[in-house]
């Protein structure tokens, strides 16, 4: 830099520009200077080296001011090739500013850079290495990696050069295409290990950074480095370093942190001596770090401590972890917010390890105190930690504490707090009564931050446990008396009182009239949705005590008023209910208690998973290596700078797509022999809806029709008001199953929107359909094609003559197809549909064979794939008409975009010309999650599997399900799993007879604007062949876990 200062012209130029008072003056000055430089550059006279430098510095300065100096690029690259250091220096600096890695012009300098790199002049080597690291793109990476490696490996070069070379190599690695094998582990594992014997701390720091970058992709082959790294740590601890690398009395803190971090990527060292040494080091770090006055020193010490805690976790030594917990707890009581935050964060990581949860719990009080910290980010972290450290033993206490905190919590974190409290209450419920109490308190206090899922969970739980009914109703009445009137709270109490209030009244505790009054107080201020629910509740009250005159008067008054309200929905309910009250017998038949709920995954957990998905940016604030495994694969594939250790399966990212594609063909062959005996299965049986009780002819009086129409309304409105369409959809089946003839009666009762409420159908279509139904069957098919959602219901209503029934068991075929690649999908008296599938990564090529068995041509053939969020469909042409005794092929390619729960379906429809019969039904495609699984490209050692398994937090990422007696024997499962794309781990679980572990990669995306994703997945089957068999699935994706679990359960049983 000393040379720059000697350039007088440059100084004057910079001074002139700084003195300019306006932008225009500056521009004028710049234009003048650029004109002069252009003149000089085109002049025939050769410039002196001094001039060349001067003008290049001027251009550089001008460029940094934001002006365009393109014409100087060539001169800059000439300077790179110059012989003097000063010229080279400015040439390199200018090139790295003017050019970016995608610039074509970079090719011109690549040769000079290479010459400098292999020259004997260290200064030139350093310049070249800096330039490569700053600008180098993939082309540099291809051409120069070898040379950089040579510089690094050459022991004769000076440390300062090798240090740069190590960092430069890391940069080139990151820039190289992800599939390029640049550093062969077999060569570099040993070489790096030897290099780590180096004495120079600077080189060691560079090398450990390089190793960190390499190990974060795949540590395999580099295990030999671990003892060396441990020895470096040992050296640091003994302060065996030169004075230059001592920072506040600590030996090279950065190196220590890097080393500790590297160690986290490796499995715990196997050699006992090394392990002992490492444990000893960690112990010393965790043991001796008293806070001192100096902030800088404290920061340095704490950085090392936090890394040491992470190493302790990966070492899985309970004693060390306990020390870590103790130390972190000490930090929690410090006033310094940064330290507190980091301590909480690390504590949360520790709390995930089951062995030390209890130790963490000892500090529960300190952590609870953090909830009242002044800093909101600390409060958040404390909440996270509490959520993680909750165990059955302390759950009640923590939940109570959170409930009392809820009243104080600020609004920014309230929603999260409410959700997490609810999840905790649900996860570790000590008793059902306690759960109901806590949730009611929660809803009372949460106010508007409560979400609908809260009360849905309560209602589900209460409904499914008869012993709770009266208790819940009592508590609801008490809570109402306390006076809260938030929306969600009112819905919950209203629902429960509607169902079980009459029983409470019958027990002589709270008369129905009082219950009615309690609810009515809140009625006026409620939203229309809640009002609708409450109207139904009132109707239930009225039906339950038909002789209670006072109640009847009160209810009638409300119904009377709302019969004329502007809201069509409310008005309709009021009118219908008023009609019902006049016909007691009908009303009693129509208003029934709700059936029990199907066992489903927790709504709250699902919502929590969604929320955590939203909060990814927060997760990104943490260092990448600390992130949970979700999204790890994506980042690795994108070549992100520091990819975190991916869950399990090292090296899943690159190359797996091709491998999977190759495997796909074999997989299909394998699947053929792995048929399990077909078995009727309740889940996703499409027959349930399409086999309606056949009483279309039954002439109902107006009253009965009304009653029947209202009965589903009661069930369905309670259901439909359960919130968003997304959550309402899965709740459909029980409703439809309970009232199979609801759709039948629909055309006669002119109350169109009742079923439409749950399945969003455009009202005009609903009006048209019943009218046109009996005659124009063809029209219905067309409608069905337009509107796949409403099709089932209305086609059933329309098929006046005789409904077409499938011959054979559709569910059994489906089940068989889940493992087989071809077979029958559907068959009835007129048509047979066969299917053949071929899997290639996330895409399945399906061929549907539509065969006409009839003697006449089938008309109006329709086959459509309704859009699905998780799939991208591409369908070939479908003929309008199917000739007799002919078969056509329809190709359909389905690409999985995201993990999915609902099996995709196609809509099939046709009409038989002679008989006027019409078919319109949806056929579930045999695309279950396991179809998209492929074995990982590398072996997963058993200890790695165990470790990763541990790392995955509980639900929703890790789910367990009992299989019961339906589970197959171990041998059968062992044969079946590879056929499904799983790799079975041989020596797992101590070889016990009834357990099995397997891994696979779930692939999705790559079409429709989504990125190809590969979700590693781990599966454990335990207790095979016994009645206690269970299936556990763990992935980094909540939906994926659930999908694979369901699919496996379906296939295995």
């Amino acid at each position, binding site marked *: 830099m000393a040379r720059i200062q000697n350039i007088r012209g440059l100084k004057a130029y910079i001074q002139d520009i700084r003195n300019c*008072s*306006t*932008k*225009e003056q500056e521009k004028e000055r710049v*234009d*003048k200077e650029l*004109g002069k430089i*252009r003149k000089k*550059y*085109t002049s025939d006279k050769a410039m002196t080296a001094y001039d060349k430098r001067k003008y290049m510095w001027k251009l550089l300065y001008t460029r940094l001011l934001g002006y365009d100096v393109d014409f100087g690029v060539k001169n800059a690259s000439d300077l790179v090739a110059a012989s003097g250091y000063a010229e080279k220096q400015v040439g390199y600096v200018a090139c790295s500013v003017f050019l970016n890695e995608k610039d074509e012009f970079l090719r011109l300098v690549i040769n000079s850079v290479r010459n400098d790199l292999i020259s004997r002049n260290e200064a030139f080597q350093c310049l070249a290495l800096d330039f490569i690291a700053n600008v180098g793109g993939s082309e540099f990476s291809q051409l120069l990696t070898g040379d950089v490696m040579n510089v690094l490996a050459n022991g004769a070069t000076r440390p300062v050069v090798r240090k740069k070379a190590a960092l430069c190599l890391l940069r080139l690695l990151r820039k190289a295409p992800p599939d390029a094998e640049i550093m062969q582990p077999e060569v570099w594992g040993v070489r790096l290990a030897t290099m780590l014997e180096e004495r120079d701390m600077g080189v060691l720091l560079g090398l450990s950074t390089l190793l960190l970058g390499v190990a974060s992709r795949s540590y395999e082959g580099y295990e030999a480095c671990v003892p060396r790294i441990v020895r470096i740590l040992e050296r640091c601890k003994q302060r065996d370093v030169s004075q230059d690398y001592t920072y506040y009395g600590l030996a090279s803190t950065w190196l220590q942190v890097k080393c500790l971090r590297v160690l986290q990527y490796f499995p715990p060292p196997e050699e006992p001596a090394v392990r002992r040494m490492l444990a000893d080091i960690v112990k010393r770090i965790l043991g001796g770090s008293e806070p001192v006055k100096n902030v800088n020193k404290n920061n340095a010490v704490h950085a090392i401590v936090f890394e040491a805690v992470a190493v302790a976790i990966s070492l899985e030594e309970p004693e060390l972890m306990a020390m870590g917990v103790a130390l972190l707890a000490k930090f929690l009581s410090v006033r310094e917010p940064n330290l507190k935050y980091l301590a909480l964060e690390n504590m949360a990581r520790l709390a995930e390890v089951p062995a030390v949860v209890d130790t963490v719990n000892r500090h529960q009080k300190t952590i609870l105190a953090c909830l009242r910290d002044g800093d909101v980010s600390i409060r958040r972290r404390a909440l996270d930690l509490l959520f993680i450290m909750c165990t059955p033993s302390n759950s009640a206490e923590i939940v109570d504490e959170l409930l009392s905190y809820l009243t104080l919590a600020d609004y920014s974190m309230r929603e999260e707090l409410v959700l997490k409290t609810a999840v905790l209450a649900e996860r570790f419920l000590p008793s059902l009564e306690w759960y109901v109490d806590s949730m009611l308190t929660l809803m009372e206090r949460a106010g508007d931050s409560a979400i609908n899922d809260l009360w849905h969970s309560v209602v589900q739980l209460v409904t499914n446990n008869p012993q709770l009914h009266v208790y819940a109703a009592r508590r609801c009445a008490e809570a109402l008396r306390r006076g809260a009137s938030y929306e969600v709270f009112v819905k919950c109490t209203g629902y429960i009182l509607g169902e079980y209030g009459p029983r409470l009244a019958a027990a002589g505790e709270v008369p129905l009239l009082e219950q009615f009054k309690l609810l009515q107080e809140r009625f006026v201020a409620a939203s229309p949705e809640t009002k609708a629910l409450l109207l139904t509740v009132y109707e239930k009250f009225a039906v339950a005590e038909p002789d209670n005159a006072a109640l009847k008067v009160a209810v009638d008054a409300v119904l009377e008023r709302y019969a004329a309200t502007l809201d069509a929905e409310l008005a309709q309910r009021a009118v219908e209910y008023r009609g019902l009250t006049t016909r007691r017998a009908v009303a009693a038949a129509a208003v029934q208690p709700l059936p029990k709920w199907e066992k489903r995954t927790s709504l709250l957990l699902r919502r929590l998973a969604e929320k955590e998905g939203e909060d990814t940016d927060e997760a990104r604030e943490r260092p990448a290596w600390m992130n949970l495994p979700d999204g790890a694969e994506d980042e690795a594939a994108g070549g992100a700078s520091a990819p975190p250790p991916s869950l399990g399966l090292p090296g899943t990212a690159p190359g797996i797509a091709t491998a999977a594609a190759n495997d796909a063909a074999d997989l299909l062959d394998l699947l053929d022999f792995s048929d399990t005996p077909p078995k009727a299965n309740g889940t996703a049986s499409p027959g349930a809806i399409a086999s309606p009780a056949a009483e279309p002819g039954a002439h109902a009086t107006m009253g009965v029709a009304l009653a029947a129409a209202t009965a589903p309304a009661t069930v369905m409105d309670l259901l439909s008001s359960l919130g968003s369409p997304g959550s309402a959809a899965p709740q459909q089946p029980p409703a439809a199953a309970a009232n199979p003839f609801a759709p039948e009666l629909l055309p006669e009762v002119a109350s169109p929107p009742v079923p439409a409420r749950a399945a969003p159908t455009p009202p005009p279509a609903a009006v048209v359909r019943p009218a046109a139904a009996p005659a124009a069957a063809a029209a219905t098919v067309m409608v069905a094609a337009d509107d796949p959602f409403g099709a089932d219901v209305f086609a059933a209503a329309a098929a006046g003559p005789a409904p077409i029934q499938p011959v054979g068991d559709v569910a059994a075929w489906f089940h068989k197809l889940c493992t087989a690649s071809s077979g029958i999908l559907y068959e009835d008296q007129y048509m047979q549909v066969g299917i053949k599938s071929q899997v290639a990564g996330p895409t399945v090529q399906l061929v549907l064979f539509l065969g006409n068995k009839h003697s006449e041509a089938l008309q109006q053939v329709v086959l459509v794939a309704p859009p699905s969020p998780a799939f991208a469909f591409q369908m070939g042409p479908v003929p309008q008409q199917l000739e007799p005794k002919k078969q056509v092929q329809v190709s359909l390619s389905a690409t999985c975009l995201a993990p999915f729960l609902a099996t995709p379906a196609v809509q099939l429809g046709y009409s038989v010309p002679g008989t006027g019969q019409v078919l319109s039904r949806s056929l579930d495609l045999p695309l279950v999650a396991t179809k998209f699984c492929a074995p990982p490209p590398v072996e997963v050692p058993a200890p790695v599997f165990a470790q990763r398994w541990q790392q995955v937090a509980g639900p929703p990422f890790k789910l367990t399900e009992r299989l019961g007696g339906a589970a197959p024997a171990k041998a059968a499962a062992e044969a079946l799993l590879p056929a499904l794309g799983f790799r079975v781990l041989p020596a797992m679980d101590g070889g016990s007879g009834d357990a099995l572990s397997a891994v696979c990669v779930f692939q999705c995306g790559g079409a429709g604007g989504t990125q190809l994703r590969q979700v590693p997945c781990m599966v454990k089957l335990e207790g095979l062949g016994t009645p206690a068999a269970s299936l556990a699935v763990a992935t980094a994706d909540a939906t994926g876990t659930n999908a694979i679990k369901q699919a496996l359960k379906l296939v295995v049983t």
Partner: protein
Amino acid sequence: MAGPLAVCNESLGALYFINGRGDVLIQRIYRDDIERNLASAFRSHVINSRETDAASLAPVRQFGDASYVYLRAGNVYLLAITKRNSNALMIMQFLSRLVDLVRAYCQGEFSEDVVKGNFVLIYELLDEVLDHGYPQPRLLLLLLVVVLQGWVTPATKKKREAEAANATLQVTGAVGWRKEGLRYKKNEVFLDVIENVDMLMSAQAGRPLVLRCEVQGRLVMKAFLSGMPDIKLGLNDKLEDVTFHPCVNLGRFNAEKVVSFVPPDGEFELMKYRCTEGITLPFKAVALIQEHGRTRLDVTVKVKSTFPVKLFATNMVVLVPVPDQTARASFNITAGKAKYDPKRHALVWKLKKFPGETEHTLAASVELIATTRDKKPWSRPPLSMSFQVPMHSASGVRVQYLKVWEKSSYKVDKWVRRLLRANPGDYEVRL
């Protein structure tokens, strides 16, 4: 609600003097709805903006709910901000009058340094011309009495105070713009007819087409006359779009086409006119540019004067734009001097004197430097000329007579001058 009868609000919310760097020199805030930081939006969106499209150069801009009206005088921006539905033209006019006012006090100068050197004066003036943001019409004559400058002796002060006391009387009198009892030893009157020509010609070779042509003329009078003189001015009929100084008797102009008035003392702008037809162009120019590859350019420019041979143009400058990456240029010219000016991205050809009915040519070969990246093709901005032709007029307006009457019927020396000029950027020929 602003209905059809909504009153157009005549006020400014705030007034700023801002230098070219965006620093606020003077700030006056008249209304509560103006936040203190509004001027920073002006700095970032106007002064430091790199946009050059028409919308970003407009003198009235809207940022947020505030309207910004500004003009630039020298290196100072005058900015008025309002949040009401104010009359933008009125504000514009006010700002330009304000500049004139400061100029009148500061020897015709207006710049950042002038503003910085006269803070007190400008604040005083602002107090006079703006009441709560409402502009107050003020005659300079009266202001000079009220707002004093420099060191004032007690005697002068007393005299001025007396004048100020009489001011009302005078302003409301018949001839509010002229003081009584003026006396000059030598009675003189000067009349300058100054025309600015504004022209754009198309590039069609052989038959150039005039796309836009306009002459803006001003009659500026300097009167040093005793007593209450009455002046009559006769012009030929070629006038359109005329504006007069308030002293002119409009009734007589409409009836007799005679400009008759009692002049204010000193210099004033008697009238302005604008003319779009029957204009004789003083110069014809033809330019030819040939690009040879990416690094060479040949330019030929021919300029011919059309005015009478005994007249001549002075200070003629022809700007021939060239691409940004021009490195050097060599010239072959018949008269004057030429060079490449990187600041203006143009070849500058200067001719001190250009006689009538002559033709001069410039031939230049331009060398460009190669760039690494392909750029947009050069936009070929138009060639532009600036010049002054004394004693010539492009519109044909002529002063036929100028008569002065006074009770004492003294002898008056009368001088009439004419000047035709084009400012840089006004007289353009497309390439």
